[in-house]
């Protein structure tokens, strides 16, 4: 099988290989921020942006710095540091120069600095040997997939809060996990349609 078309990879990352619903990564902010559609949207947008840019950035760091120096085994540390520094830089810039955007998305940035989905995307990029363009497509796709999932769940949760009478033990994260499981089953139907590696 030849290299995957970046466009295919982009859609695969959204639907067939949704990072949240098939890999169950990034569950922590997913559970805490999915109560309201508005905050889910902001969080989702922040994840899309950070995931796309850090996956591409880490691709450069990995193939231009770590591989030539034979330091691939350090990728965990380096990736985390790069992600953290990048997010911090972006946050400062957005806060200073684009303050309306900051209130929509910027405040979520620090929350996802050490998010496992972001880090996971960078690691998948290495394992699956994506090149730069593929990494960008994969990162963006994964981010959009994550956003899609959190928006769907937050909409369901908002609806549930208004209409359903839940037993106390099931409120909050419990019911969210159950819904996520069901949604994930639905997404399983897509699996196998596209191979991502």
């Amino acid at each position, binding site marked *: 099988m030849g290299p995957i078309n970046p466009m295919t990879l982009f859609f695969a990352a959204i639907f067939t290989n949704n990072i949240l619903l098939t890999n169950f990564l990034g569950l922590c902010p997913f559970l805490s921020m999915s109560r309201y559609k508005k*905050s889910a949207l902001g969080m989702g947008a922040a994840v899309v942006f950070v995931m796309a840019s850090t996956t591409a950035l880490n691709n450069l760091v990995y193939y231009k710095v770590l591989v030539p*120096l034979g330091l691939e085994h350090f990728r965990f540390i*380096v990736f985390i540091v*790069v992600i953290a*520094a990048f997010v911090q830089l972006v946050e*400062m810039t957005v806060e200073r120069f684009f*303050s309306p955007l900051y209130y929509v998305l910027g405040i979520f940035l620090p929350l996802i600095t050490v998010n496992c989905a972001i880090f996971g995307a960078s690691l998948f990029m290495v394992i699956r040997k994506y090149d730069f363009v593929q990494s960008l497509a994969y990162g963006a796709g994964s981010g959009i997939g994550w956003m899609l999932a959190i928006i769907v769940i937050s909409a369901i949760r908002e609806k549930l809060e208004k209409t359903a009478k839940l037993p106390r033990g099931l409120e909050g994260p419990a019911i969210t996990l159950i819904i996520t499981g069901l949604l994930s089953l639905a997404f399983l139907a897509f699996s196998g349609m596209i191979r991502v590696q």
Partner: protein
Amino acid sequence: MLQSILSVLVISVIGAVLAMLLELADRFIADYGECNILINEEKELKVQGGSPLLFSLQDEGIFIPSACGGKGTCAYCKVKVLEGGGPVLPTETPYLSAEELEENIRLSCQVKVRNDLAIEIPEELFSIKEFRVEVKSIADLNPYIKGIILDILTPDEGIIYKPGQYIQLEIPKYKLYSEPEFRAFSMASTPDKKKEIELYVGLVEKGIVSTYIHEYLRERDELVMRGPFGDFCYRKSERDILMIATGTGLAPIMSILRHMRSEKIQRKSMLFFGTWTEEDLLCVEELKNLERELPGFSFVPTLSRVPADSPWKGERGRVTSLIEQKIPEGAGLDVYICGNPDMVDSCLKILKTKGIPENQIYFDKFS
């Protein structure tokens, strides 16, 4: 060998480059210049932008109450931000009610100073200051409560407070704890002495501050404190007064009683003071003298853990049973309660059944 040296080197270089980038960004991008904060439409402050409002005000000597140190969890640091605060952040919304949102109330630890601000804070916060104090004396009031008297060194004019309010006393780092730490203590002294305050400190098992004060603090030591805080204080009215205290909760009550003595306030008043045993009682002599000096004041100590055969002639049982016995239904009283939270809660419950209106009950929970 070469490999490992190279690895360390490369990782350090990557780290250093990123750190430098962030440092530069912090210097140039996060530089908001000088911002003006207009307070209550009269006072104007010039501060360096970029830090949370709470800390910017603190640097200028205006101390908004805060227990969590700016982490956005205690919600004590609410202020009214009229202009320039930006939209309410998701980190604040859990702590703000609909009315508060309507009135532009914000958590000052979450509002960053990025541009000129106009805010409104209660006048009395201006009187909250930082004081340098010297320990004048430490005395054992009972086996586990010490009374400490502090002389205020700076500022010169001393402290202005209402009887019943508290200060936050900061202790330096010491053997058992590696950072300075502060706790709230109520004044037992009266506000007419502006340069000297008295606090009661109970020993708490494994308590960082109380252990320091009980075992490490010496006379002539210097400390820092901030205050005054709190809305538990003496209120003027014509009604009779009931005071209820346990343990160190006696401190603000003492302040109120001493205030009544020095101001010659003639209201009829009664104090229920509960402890376990007779040796746990404190200030007994002064309270007995107060019965003579304050016409209409009676002191009712009650012990909850005395053996049946002890010579104790006073009341036995908890303060709550004293309320049951001695307070008639619908009594027109102002009630001041101070002590551990469980005791306060059970007193509130009983007072409710006695039909005493909530707005005549003032309490301070010592937890």
